[in-house]
């Protein structure tokens, strides 16, 4: 199954902070769990159009594929978990989501 045949979510970056956010159907959330799952091309197109109309809140909305394990593309997983490396200013010391993304990489 190609990525475009999978369910999609709308993701973007928050205008003020730049953090990754997901379209919930009513607004935006930093949690993928809150994202509105879009199963068919028509609802995906409609949701993306609504999200694009919310340019006062977010930057660059687009569709990203999800499966049972979460976001499909490695790039998208890094987007939500943050850098996979233990950088100096990391807010979540001692492993954290970055370590998870690292272990699920290529």
């Amino acid at each position, binding site marked *: 199954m190609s990525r475009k045949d999978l369910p999609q979510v709308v993701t973007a*970056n928050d*205008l*003020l*902070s*730049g*953090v*990754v956010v997901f379209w919930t159907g009513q607004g935006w959330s930093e949690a993928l769990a809150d994202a509105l799952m879009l199963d068919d091309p028509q609802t995906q197109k409609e949701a993306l159009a609504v999200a694009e109309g919310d*340019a*006062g809140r977010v*930057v*660059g909305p687009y569709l990203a594929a999800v499966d049972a394990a979460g976001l*499909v*593309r*490695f*790039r998208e997983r*890094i*987007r939500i978990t*943050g*850098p*996979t*490396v233990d*950088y*100096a*200013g*990391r*807010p979540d010391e001692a492993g954290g989501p970055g370590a998870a993304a*690292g272990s699920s*990489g*290529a």
Partner: protein
Amino acid sequence: MYRYDDFDAQFVRERTDQFRTQVERRLSGELTEDEFKPLRLMNGLYLQLHAYMLRVAIPYGTLSSTQMRRLAEIADRWDRGYGHFTTRQNIQFNWPKLKDVPDILDALAEVEMHAIQTSGNCIRNVTSDPFAGVAADEIEDPRATAELMRQWSTLHPEFSFLPRKFKIAITGSPNDRAATKVHDIGLRMVRNEAGEPGYEVAVGGGQGRTPMIAAVIRDFVPKADLLAYLEAIMRVYNLYGRRDNKYKARIKILVHELGVEAFTREVEAEFAAQEAPVTADPELVTAIEAAFAPPTYAVLADDPPALAQAKAANPAFKRWVDTNLMRHKQPGYAGITVSLKPIGGIPGDATSDQMRALADAADWFGYGELRVTHEQNIVLPDVRQDRLVALWRHLSQHGLDTANAGLVTDIIACPGLDYCALATARSIPVAQAISNRFADDDRQQAIGPLAIKISGCINACGHHHVGHIGVLGLEKNGEEYYQLTLGGAPDGAAAVGKRAGPGLAAEEVPDAIERLVDHYLDRREDDETFLQTYQRLGHDTFKEVIYAPGD
């Protein structure tokens, strides 16, 4: 070093005020993102994977201790307590919030810094030899010319919308430490037959998806004619450079497609036809040159007894001095490379505490000046040799005493897919794995000079094309993989590395590099470096060992 004059201070202040208004208009909805994006990019503000990224210009890599402390303050107050020094001798902050950026730009302006022209299709920050002004092999300090070019190219109306971005590098030494041959224009100071200093001009170098070594189009341009000659080059590029395809828009493609001779003819014709060639006001030139006058050095001798005693008493200090010291033009002084490549660390990253420690080092052990290198390290340019041991102790308290300048763990790596929206694969974890593999100091010393450079995509910000061993991260079917190149060199006889067979998984890269290194150690003659042995034995013998586990 150069200090802003009233004009500089005013235009930076005006730009900062202007950007504050632009941010307000974006937040109020008055500007769309399509309208705002080019404005933020003109001020160095990108949107990366997780956050905005602000790229701050450090002209020709020179900054004061005051400026370094301000960078630390910005990191603490508006970011996450660290910054990333880049192969463009700039610094990037990875986590600023849009609403804070005008305040950050104000804070930068107060110490004569900005983020203008760190993005966009304009002339970017001019880069230079990090040892400019102090290198023993130098003809003259090239930074006066670099500063003149900064003033000429900043907000230049004719060259603000070029076909593509444009990078100029300049060196005053015959030994190229500024990778000039892989820049759009590379300037190397030479003397003419009369002994006057001027510049050899090379054009059309670059990395990215089409790596090329710049071609020399003029053996000598007098210093007084340099801006006019640069304008001639820029005009030919602006006129004939392709705007229909961004992948063919760099000047290297124009030079390649026209041919060096035809391109040179066009430039020479444009140069000759200038009715009122641009010239710098002699008073301004004198003032700039005075700003780069050397400090008043003490009269000292090289190799003071105290240094020899300290080296004899402390092997770790000796290793650091033998590895990270650059010969200074002034007897009794040294240029020191402070490595930002601790074993297993992130190349180029420095915490705010480390930035302050570096600023302190510049004040306590030098004349308050620091340099950023394109190899993502920091240089302290003027350290008394009899104070090296005190400096080393200070640096060691802040994790800044790694003795690996120019060695296998002094790895260049771009931010890669851990941060960058353009990246196709991660760079940093690969650099860390290689660094950990070669952590042993004695082994590093035995291997000698070896430049490993890693890019996380074809844009080559990690300079992989000119690595003795280059590593290019790519992606296929959702998996990262890494392509090795061999035999590249940024200096002297600059060369683009040659691709070495199929890509490797990330975990295979350290093993492959170890086999390359062992192959070199087994076969080197006398004091040959890795690159010399590679050049003597040829590409194929090295390529084969990459894929021959257990050989």
